[in-house]
């Protein structure tokens, strides 16, 4: 469902992402780990069509993000790391806006919006302007926005930031359920606990390159770190290739 093939991105002299290739299948949660500035957000921004790669191809459900951007975006939902949304709309208006951008039928949109507002605990706030929402509520509303058009692929950039323990638990449970229903989920995080808890497969990205990828067991065995937890593995691998960027 998500295919990255030799994807590179350069900003001037700075090589943000270098020759990344990976594949995420339907029904799978793929966790992308990395330190600040490792290239996770750049990779995600390329996957969602916000920026184009300098080389390589990205396909979402078979649609190329550069040559068929509208079709690729139509099947994809995106939750950014910071929930910048329209402050002067109410929560419900924001979801209507997204539903109409994705050309949803109005009855279907109404149903889905009601369901999501209920699920994410925003029903009481649906008629309030977004500017009055807390950070966590905005994050939850952004997640609703990414899900309102029932995407086949969901991409989340640091989705747990700003969520309280309840919100965090709710999201983790929801992600597992969506994956069980066949959704393909790609999430970036620097929270190793989250990755360890919900991701089926993982990739550790560092200085724009994938250092290792696979299930936790595969990563352990590939690097001869069978007794270690994800935190030790992460520190071990990133320490050998350099410190913070």
């Amino acid at each position, binding site marked *: 469902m998500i295919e990255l093939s030799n994807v590179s991105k350069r900003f001037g002299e700075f090589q943000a992402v270098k020759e990344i290739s990976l594949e995420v299948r339907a029904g799978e949660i793929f966790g992308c780990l990395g330190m600040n500035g490792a290239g996770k957000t750049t990779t995600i921004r390329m996957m969602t069509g916000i920026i184009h790669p300098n080389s390589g191809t990205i396909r979402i459900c078979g649609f190329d993000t550069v040559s068929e951007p509208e079709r690729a975006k139509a099947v994809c939902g995106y939750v950014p790391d910071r929930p910048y949304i329209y402050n002067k709309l109410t929560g419900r*208006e924001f979801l209507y806006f997204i539903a109409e951008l994705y050309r949803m039928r109005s009855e279907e949109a109404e149903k889905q919006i009601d369901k999501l507002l209920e699920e994410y605990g925003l029903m009481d706030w649906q*008629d309030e302007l977004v500017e009055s929402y807390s950070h966590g509520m905005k994050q939850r509303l952004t997640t609703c926005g990414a899900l309102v058009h029932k995407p086949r692929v969901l991409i989340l950039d640091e989705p747990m930031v700003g969520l309280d323990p309840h919100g965090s638990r709710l999201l983790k449970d929801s992600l597992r359920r969506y994956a069980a229903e066949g959704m393909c989920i790609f999430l970036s995080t620097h929270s190793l606990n989250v990755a360890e808890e919900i991701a089926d497969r993982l990739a550790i990205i560092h200085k724009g390159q994938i250092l290792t990828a696979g299930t936790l067991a595969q990563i352990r065995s590939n690097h001869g770190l069978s007794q270690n937890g994800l935190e030790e593995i992460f520190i071990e691998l990133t320490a050998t290739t350099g410190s913070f960027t």
Partner: protein
Amino acid sequence: MIPVLIKPRLLTVKNRLKGNYSLRTQFGRDIVIAIFSLGILWGIHRGTFEAVQVIKNNTHAAYLPPTIPLALLFLLLLVMLMLSNAVGVLAALYHGRDLDLLIASPISKLTLFAGKFTDVLFGSTWMAIVFAMPAIVAFGQSYDVGWTYYVLAIGTMLPYFVIPCALSVILITILCRFFPAHRTREMLLIMVLLLVMTAYMAFRAAQPDSSKLSDINELLRLINVLSIPQADWIPSFWLASVLGEHLDPSGRPAFLYLVLLYSTALGLTAVAFLTIRALHTEAYARSRDTRSTLRLQSKAAHRRFRALTPFLDSQYRALIGKELKNFSRDITQTIQLMLLLGLCMIYLYNFRLLHAVKDLPNTTKIYWQAFLVFTNVGMGAFVITAVSSRFVFPSISLEGQTFWLLQTSPVKIYDILRAKFWCWYVPVAGMSSIIFASGALAIDAPLKIVIVNAVASWVICYGIVGMAVGLGAVFSNFEWENASQLAASFGSLIFMVTSSIVICLSLIPVGILIFLRTIRNFGYTLSTSQWYISVTMAALLLVWLNHYAARWALRAGENALRQRMK
């Protein structure tokens, strides 16, 4: 501590100049801005100089001391400064992103007040200073006075600019303290409406019957008896009196007015500080109490909007609906819209005065009316450009950090621009047809001309709004600190220059139409077919020109936004 509060702004400007642009690009931009600004300043200077010469040379009609035109100029400036300072104070003291950080840090109320006051004062008045200076210099040159006049001008302008800033701090703080956050907009609207109505009624009560104006001398007499600018409780009159007395002494107590200016500025600043010290904490808390703001019946409202717009494609409906809601719920936009509507009223009022020049010989009258019709189209188009540069041009940049929502949705960039275009075209065209038609009605033009004016306005608007959206995308800046800076950017300047060129070109077919109609009054009649061919050709030229300009700009905008992805 005060410089510390201002330092982030200065460093932002410095870093932007240093980091974002290559030296060559920045240099090129600076040159363009410098040439354009100098052109405007030169225009203001020459215009004022010539006007003062007319005043000086027509003393037989009415002796007009320099204090009176200066008082008019400063009064206009004061009204504009009040509004811009009100917006600035609201942003700096109640809606600023840095306020939580500043209030949580160990700085005194005095430091906070002084830092923010300085920030608003410079931010809201620098443009007024730059554009008032050539007029003041022109007065000095006309009356051939020495350097002391210029020193005096600088010395008196400083307290004059402090007064509206301090008044705005006091009024906005009281508003925020005593009215719920969701009522602030209504309160400000009422304030602005009252201000406009009072000014209008006072102006009407103070003037003689303008329909009796027969020539320029009558116009001078009219200005001479206007009482409002000469009311001695208005600071603009104090400033005008101080400078006017230096230009042409008449025995007014200039020193008293100078003392009044400084004492009022200092007194109001002290009151503003005391207001901040007493009320800011509570007022700030109330302004942040967004829970009690607007509560809407979103579901019912959405159904109504959908029912009202069945002809709209779903994506267009989403984009247009969002744009309208964002605009109508943004208080700073509302204030500035009121300001611009006020300017439109002033334009129409002045235009009517021009027409009031009567008793001209018959031949001259025909030319005069043709000239006024032509001028109405040209001036109206420039008013629309000013409106578009404030509201339409920044519309893409105003997406700001929420632009990712559009970038990641399955909407083509061109469709985003088209939606923005239609969203703005309809209200701006509606407004412009009112301005154009009112202008034509004000000069008693025949109904046909009124209709042609209104239709021409839709066509010209098409070009102007298209260019505003397109060039707004070309020069889009999603990292703005303050939305008002978008309308005063380099891109906005380029839009105004480009728009002016297209307006001038559009005036060619409009001029042809008016010329053909005017010469009919002198017996130069065209055959029916010649007449229709000429009219059709001129109309087609007007439509093609504006359609091409809009399309070119929208395509350029689309390409620029695509380039950002690379």
